[in-house]
């Protein structure tokens, strides 16, 4: 999995920016694993005035193809333009807009904190990866909001370093 950029914390329901959160589409995109594919996908998004808020790329279940999970702010364009513009690309095999669907969403955060007291983090479900002189490194996975809350709590423990993935999503089958 490629970690590109962390997703900003979710806006609370009372935030004046709540409308912007609604402008975000979540897409699961199956693409050919070619040398130009990522350039073309990101180029199409940029050129149409959209903005990537989260992305993760990894192998799909099909050989020679990758699964890109995208969270995209579609700006002033109609919501379905993101899907349609991606579908126009020959390297894109399938676009699934799962924004309104019932999905499993997971993001990963790995962080090193100074404090030796990690009770609160461990209670949330964090796993300790290593302990050293600079601090303790933990990992945590969860939904976007859970990861956001986890990162908020990390700050209480004095963050040395943090890396956060984009999302991966999968439709709930049962």
């Amino acid at each position, binding site marked *: 999995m490629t970690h590109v950029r962390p997703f900003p914390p979710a806006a609370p329901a009372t935030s004046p920016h709540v409308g912007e959160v609604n402008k975000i589409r979540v897409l699961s995109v199956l*693409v*050919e694993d070619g*040398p*130009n594919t990522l*350039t*073309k996908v990101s*180029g199409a998004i940029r*050129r149409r005035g959209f903005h990537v808020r989260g992305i993760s790329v990894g192998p799909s279940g099909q050989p020679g193809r990758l699964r890109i999970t995208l969270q995209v702010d579609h700006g002033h*364009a*109609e919501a*379905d*333009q993101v899907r*349609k*513009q991606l*579908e*126009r*690309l*020959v*390297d*894109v*095999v399938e676009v699934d807009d799962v924004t309104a669907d019932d999905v499993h969403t997971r993001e990963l955060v790995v962080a090193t904190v100074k404090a030796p007291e990690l009770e609160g983090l461990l209670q949330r479900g964090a796993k300790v990866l290593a302990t050293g002189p600079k601090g303790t490194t933990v990992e945590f996975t969860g939904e976007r909001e859970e990861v956001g809350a986890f990162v908020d709590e990390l700050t209480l423990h004095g963050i040395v370093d943090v890396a956060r993935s984009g999302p991966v999503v999968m439709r709930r089958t049962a």
Partner: protein
Amino acid sequence: MVLEALEREGVEYIFGYPGGANLPLYQHLHEHPKLKHILVRHEQGAAHMADGYARAGGKPGVVFATSGPGALNLVTGLCTAYMDSVPLVAITGQVPSTVVGRDAFQESDVIGATSSVTKHSYLVTKIDQLPRVIHEAFHIATTGRPGPVLIDICRDVQQAEAERVTAERLEIPGYRLNGHVDFDGARRAAQALAAAERPVILAGHGVLLSHAEHQLQELAEAAAAPVGTTLLGIGAFPVQHPLSLHMTGFMGTGWNLNAVQNADLLMMVGMRVDDRVTAKLAGFAPKVKTFIHIDIDGSEMGKNVRPHIELVADAKQALQAMLPHIGSVNGDRAAWLNQIDEWREEHPLRYKHSNGRLQPQDVLIDMYRRARSQAIVVADVGQNQIWAALWWNYDRPGLFINSGGAGTMGFALPAAIGAKFARPDRPVWCVAGEGGFVMTAQELSVAVEHQLDVKIVLLNNFSLGMVRQFQDDFYGGVRSQVDLTHMPDFVKLAGAYGLPALRVEKFEDIAPAFDAAERTKGPFLIDFRIDPEANVYPIVPIGKSLNEFWEAPES
């Protein structure tokens, strides 16, 4: 291998320029006499020639260029073709695969630089990819919504020996063709069109690309619905047909714009509904209750205007599917058509011709009188383009070629040369302003070398006329950097390139100059010194709605 594949695709002409990274292709070119190579004088010229060739002849245009600057010089031409959905296949040389990424001599990231102006592109680093890639490229360029496809081939691959491989069966899972008409949607569209009190049909380039002009006319007549065209849709509906609204958009005719702004139903066929068509989007067609949009590209649905009925399909098939469902037409239709006739009387196309200066419209009217529906007119960009669009009565497809979407100055001359290669049987007229003309004037050598019967009508006003008009009308009357008094003597310039030319400054000299041009075999240039204050009307002021158009002052 590349050249054999091109022969298999039925390529006749290649417009190109050799260089370090495509020399292997040129080494073997003479072994393929079926492939005629036209040596251009600048790669941009090659792209526009291939574009004009494709638009006039219907076959994809093929371009060769070398790596680095050669390939980058194609970018404007690729963009022009991309914006107007023209099928091109551009084959560029790339540095050997062993040095890609090391900033080798004349290396550039051509895929990166062109991906936003191509329908698709390939970097070929292995010989076994080539047959499939070339076959796919032609398929993708010419099907669905056409467009330019670029193939960047490393020099070592061009030289590589390979077993003769014929192209495999096409299998492109990510390439979706929208071939199937939604018959229920077509029926609903037809019923809505017939039931509307004040319908308007607008036709774009897609109607021409799918050869749907007969279905369009049949449908319009059955539904008694008036038809306007976009700038690129000119020819989709005969201008002199009683139901014709002529051109729409912010330089469209007054009766067209009034019709669009008062319509209760607007059916848009094979068009993008861009800002030049809508003017102020919020004020576009404000009385419409039903928008119908037909386009082969699903991403056009709702990109600018959200339709109530959408048909993502080939225009011809969609219109064909609508035809049987027109049935009886709303009884108020006669009143609507009468209203449009009144607007046509009230807002005719007109121009000032009382100041003794040579008017561009006079030139075009004389041209039209001679050429009628035989000649192909290739216009440049600016005032000349709109005059050429409005002052001819194009009655069928394929007679008017211009860079509508990209608005590329310098397009006309090379595109006219390409059009002549595609249609040697037809007169080809290149209409250009002097500003755009000098941007690609070096291609005159190609016209002279091949003694192409391309007649160049230079509408020379010693200024960037459209920009000057915008500055006069919309930017406080401040004329800034539009003065082109220092230009070559175009008659002498033509002489230097080796083609005959005449200068015309008076109305009486228009006809004799055209006579001379028509008598002369090969290229001919006429430098018409037109009224430097001549303007394009009607025009919708920037930021205004279509119904707020300005008209030519009474003369």
